[in-house]
């Protein structure tokens, strides 16, 4: 094992320990070669393999860093992605135990559910539209295993793109009924708008983000497959979350979906 491989394993170990103990860790960028996004994705792959070995199923992918402002902030010129697993999916309005997602925050997104594989070397928007069975409104509960969200692009990519949990709405809408670019988004806490935006905030159009993901995953040898859920990226600024909060996201044309947070942790959870 060379030194980069060792670094990847120790970064994965550090992130997994944080997840399991509920105690956020120091940034993993200090373990990896500076700015090495490939090494960061290697960490994410190691974590993904561990989840699979534990019996988890990959249900899809999330796209992150899709806003110009966030890319500028982290000094990158492209989005990133993370893996969604079956244990991350939460029913609309069901309580997410407090602490289940470390340092939770939330954002509203468009989810695409695929009915065809996307295996070309390069995809067009038309390919993505044809492969999409329907869209759903979604709340992504992001979180960071890294203390105080002190992250660079390397940290967030290694940490599965800072994913935590996701909630999907339940009324599927075909893309032909949507104008995603100008679709309004509001995320409300107790009826008060805490984040507002529109489809264009996500790389100009959530479908553009999906094209990027399709191409990227083909290059990495594990293309998007029929049945995959794709969380395309935030339509407005992410919002902080407090215990007991119920956040409702509404996306024009797509309907609404709720992420609820418990006041306490899981039964028997000592942390």
């Amino acid at each position, binding site marked *: 094992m060379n030194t980069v491989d060792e670094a990847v394993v120790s970064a994965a170990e550090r992130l997994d320990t944080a997840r399991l103990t509920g105690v956020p860790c120091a940034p993993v960028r200090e373990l990896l070669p500076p700015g090495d996004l490939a090494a960061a994705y290697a960490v994410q792959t190691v974590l993904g393999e561990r989840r699979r070995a534990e019996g988890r199923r990959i249900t899809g992918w999330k796209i992150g860093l899709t806003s110009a402002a966030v890319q500028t902030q982290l000094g990158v010129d492209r989005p990133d992605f993370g893996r969604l697993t079956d244990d991350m999916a939460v029913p609309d309005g069901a309580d997410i135990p407090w602490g289940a997602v470390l340092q939770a925050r939330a954002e509203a997104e468009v989810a695409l559910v695929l009915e065809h594989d996307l295996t070309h070397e390069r995809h067009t928007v038309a390919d993505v539209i044809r492969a999409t069975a329907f869209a759903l409104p979604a709340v992504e509960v992001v979180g960071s295993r890294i203390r105080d969200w002190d992250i660079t692009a390397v940290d967030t990519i290694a940490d599965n793109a800072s994913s935590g949990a996701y909630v999907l709405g339940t009324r599927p809408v075909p893309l032909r009924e949507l104008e995603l670019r100008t679709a*309004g988004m*509001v995320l*409300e806490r107790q009826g*008060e708008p805490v984040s*507002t935006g*529109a*489809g264009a905030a996500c790389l100009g159009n959530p479908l553009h983000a999906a094209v990027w993901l399709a191409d990227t995953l083909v290059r990495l040898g594990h293309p998007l497959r029929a049945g995959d859920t794709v969380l395309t990226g935030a339509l407005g600024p992410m919002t902080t979350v407090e215990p007991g909060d119920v956040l409702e996201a509404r*996306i*024009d044309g797509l309907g609404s979906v709720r992420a609820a947070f418990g006041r306490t942790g899981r039964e028997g959870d000592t942390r």
Partner: protein
Amino acid sequence: MNITALAEALDTAARQGRPLSGGAGGPKDTEEAYAVQEALVARRLARGERLTGFKLGFTSLAKMRQMGVSDLIHGRLTDRMEIPDGGRVDTSGLIHPRVEPEVAFLLGDTLRPGGDPMAAVAAVAPALEVIDSRYHGFRFSLPEVIADNTSAAGYALGTWSAPGDLDNVGVLLELDGRLAETGSTAAILGNPLRALAAAARLAGELEPGTVILAGAATAAVPLPPGTHVRATVAGLGSVSLTTGEAA
């Protein structure tokens, strides 16, 4: 504080493009501040301008909290401030202009305080508002910004259409064809109609024909010379203006 003197100072600052320093000697409360605003606008009406409507400010809860206030503010619009849709506007006389995308309402019936805003609305349109604080660096107290006619400088209106559901439609602001800001009409008090109800509460009875700018759907962005600006409100279409080249 002398109401007439401050109104004159703000009027002169706007006409000469020379900002004032805020702080000492400003209006002591919002009541006095609105008296200054009225005196300021009265000077312009005396020069032949005509009142066309009202605008609202601090319509986002985030902005209200940032300013430490609990209510909206309103300002007055005149015909001199109107920029034709697609038209050219000379901003060389302005101090530090910014632009923001909005929704505008046109009243078809009288709207009394406490009245049903939807029943009074004849039409809605996408709008652009140009703001330009007459205070240095956009730094002002709440009474100061009210006295300064809520930083209003100009507005452009798109095509009027029949009022529909506006509680969460997407709003895009583009500069030279590139996306600058995205938002939703939900940022305006959760629904721009609430801003309209607030206008009647704050400004009193509103006559048919009055234009109301309901408030910004995104943050304001700096408006440089030689720039094409377009606001798109989903379902309502778009409105644009172009600023003159730098001298």
